[in-house]
């Protein structure tokens, strides 16, 4: 029975080709620094899963955001665990993505033919920071509120377009209910969608070019 199902799926999906393409690729000699991309991917998936579960109880409204998080932390079974993973995973993801970027820089892996992988990766890094920036407001406590006031003010000092950027980020001139709901929307829909799409492209490029190898004695 299971064999029949497997054969049916294999005939249509081609597990063998998938296995060869995804897992049976030639790899340069192992180095722990080369695992940070996979670690970033794992953290992205973990943030996605825990984030989806947090939306079961979180409410993006100034009246309820703080209380709903208090409820997640103290009222719901294992809510502290889900939120804790999301909270610490966020900091860890910024750190791991950044070290991944440093590794690529120092091993010069961004050179031909991998320039596009590097460019896409740089955008992924900026999007990761955007996730941190928008997610920081969501608990809507004093720290979140004032951090967003200060950070959006930074956008406001851009010459010329500053005041407009400030109002566009905040959804008005103050940090308000509109700021919270647009940050929430960016945090759970826009940025993750952009991240997921670009991660797909990033992974495709890695599979296409293979991983960069460190030079050996003959080079």
């Amino acid at each position, binding site marked *: 029975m299971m064999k029949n199902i497997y054969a049916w799926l294999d005939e249509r999906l081609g597990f063998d080709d998938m296995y060869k393409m995804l897992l049976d690729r030639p790899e340069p000699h192992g180095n722990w620094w080369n695992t940070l991309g996979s670690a970033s991917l794992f953290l992205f998936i973990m943030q996605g899963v825990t984030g989806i*579960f947090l939306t*079961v109880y979180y409410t993006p409204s100034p009246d*309820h955001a703080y209380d*709903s998080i*208090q409820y997640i932390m103290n009222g719901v079974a*294992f809510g502290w*665990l*889900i939120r804790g993973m999301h909270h610490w995973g966020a900091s860890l993801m910024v750190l791991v993505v950044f070290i991944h970027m440093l590794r690529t820089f120092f091993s010069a892996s961004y050179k031909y033919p991998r320039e596009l992988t590097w460019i896409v990766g740089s955008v992924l890094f900026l999007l990761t920071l955007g996730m941190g920036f928008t997610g920081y407001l969501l608990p809507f406590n004093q720290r979140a509120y004032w951090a967003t006031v200060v950070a959006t003010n930074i956008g406001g000092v851009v010459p010329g377009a500053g005041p407009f950027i400030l109002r566009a980020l905040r959804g008005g001139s103050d940090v308000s209910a509109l700021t919270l709901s647009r940050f929430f929307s960016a945090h759970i829909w826009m940025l993750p969608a952009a991240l997921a799409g670009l991660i797909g492209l990033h992974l495709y490029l890695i599979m296409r070019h293979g991983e960069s190898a460190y030079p050996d004695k003959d080079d």
Partner: protein
Amino acid sequence: MASSHRISRRDFVKVVTATLSGIMGAALGIPIISYLIDPALNVQSSEAWIPLGPLEGFSIGSPKSFSFTRSNVNGWEKTVNSYGGFILRKSGGELLALSNRCTHLSCSVNWDEAKKWYACPCHDAQFDADGEVLAGPPPHALDQFETKVEEGNLFVHFPAVKAHEG
């Protein structure tokens, strides 16, 4: 595998993999499922005895109104609902606690002392002093609260129940 209790290396790896997968699956699955179904498991009982003060406060013969509030907590949201009714102390010492919620569409009924009936302002319904329907659209008599007297203090049991039940 007739030879002995020894298992092959391949089977050993399979068993270890399956066991570890099971442990990791449970470590992830149990918190996630508990997290999702938690509110369904916390059923709060709303039943309570509501103190209405000394029985002497209620005069014999004519209904006297009372009211109280009950709060309901769902997650981070607390709702407070008001309830009310009438206590009728009959001359025989009998106590009747009626809900003031009309059984038609839940408007509050008022006691009309001149006409000796409860009138509902919404659809002109009337109930007699015992809560029975006299006129109008209500399908049945006013709900009643169970009562008790402890050390001279009157209590009603929340929630009110349908009259003539059982």
